[in-house]
């Protein structure tokens, strides 16, 4: 597992680094004294695990988690236990360590992270698993219409809409009505391109023209954004 350490305290970084050296297959690939530097690093590099301090000046550990897209697994390190409840609101956080760290607790935490990473890969839909494993060649989707299997180029899909027992798959050139569910097709679509923004709509985020209030304009269609899906959509946008 490759990990990074984010902590504004030099001593804490040195201790975590030393503890990581005692754990087999755990490599510290970079250390950062502030979260902004780490965000720049993560834009260019993939890591499996982050040791993250909560209390840092200007930009806290929680600010950091909210800023990065698809955060890797995170072990929080802090000098008090007052933020434990908030920590459990984030799926990426696997454990919460209170300083000073003990070796036993540290090793237990790393094992927890390791099994969590393994479980995440196993549970992902096949297309995404392929992407994680670096063998993604799935670019087409076959849909069954009147006993014909029709090939659709996935990036050409701009919208999938649920309509009762059917879904409407809309592409640049054609619209298809398929007997299936939004959940089933969502599992077949790449996570980096498609996002569910409402219980009845999955959109291709690359095809967004604009966003106004609680709606998205895609092609000539205005699609509602539900309140619960809005934060994930906002995270995906390259906002200025």
């Amino acid at each position, binding site marked *: 597992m490759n990990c990074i350490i984010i902590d504004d305290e030099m001593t804490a970084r040195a201790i975590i680094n030393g503890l990581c050296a005692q754990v087999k297959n755990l490599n510290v690939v970079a250390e950062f004294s502030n979260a902004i530097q780490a965000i720049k690093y993560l834009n260019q590099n993939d890591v499996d695990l982050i040791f993250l301090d909560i*209390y840092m000046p200007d930009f806290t550990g929680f600010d950091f988690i909210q800023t990065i897209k698809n955060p890797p697994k995170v072990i929080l390190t802090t000098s008090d236990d007052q933020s434990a409840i908030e920590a459990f609101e984030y799926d990426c956080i696997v454990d919460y360590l209170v300083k*000073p760290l003990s070796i036993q607790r540290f090793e237990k935490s790393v094992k927890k992270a390791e099994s969590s990473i393994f479980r995440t890969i196993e549970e992902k839909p096949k297309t995404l698993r392929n992407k994680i494993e670096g063998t993604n060649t799935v670019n087409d989707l076959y849909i069954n219409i009147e006993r014909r299997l029709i090939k659709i180029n996935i990036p050409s899909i701009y919208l999938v809409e649920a309509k009762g027992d059917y879904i409407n798959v809309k592409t640049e050139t054609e619209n298809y009505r398929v007997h299936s569910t939004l959940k089933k097709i969502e599992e077949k679509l790449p996570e980096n391109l498609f996002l569910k923004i409402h219980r009845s709509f999955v959109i291709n985020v690359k095809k967004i023209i604009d966003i106004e209030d609680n709606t998205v304009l895609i092609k000539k269609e205005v699609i509602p954004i539900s309140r619960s899906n809005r934060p994930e959509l906002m995270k995906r946008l390259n906002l200025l």
Partner: protein
Amino acid sequence: MEKPNLLYIESMSRGDDAFTQKILDVVKKEFPQELEIYKNNYKEGNYITASENVHKIKHKISLLGLEKSYEVATCYENNLKENITDFHDDFEEIMQMISDYLLTF
């Protein structure tokens, strides 16, 4: 009064003297810097920022096995957040004790 010690750092090092020394060197370098920043903020009346400095220093206090002092520092940190300076003298005493101890290495 309790005394600073290296028991915790040595337990983490699992007998690796180089690791113990490395941590000690980092503490010796970082502690005076953090203390100075804290003192400046306290002097300027920036108590909220000073409380954040105390929060950071608390880690060193715990590393040196000073459990009671850690509790005092926590009370002081919480007071500073409320612009109350109770425990200031106790905290200064702890800081002096750590400074003196680090000079022995």
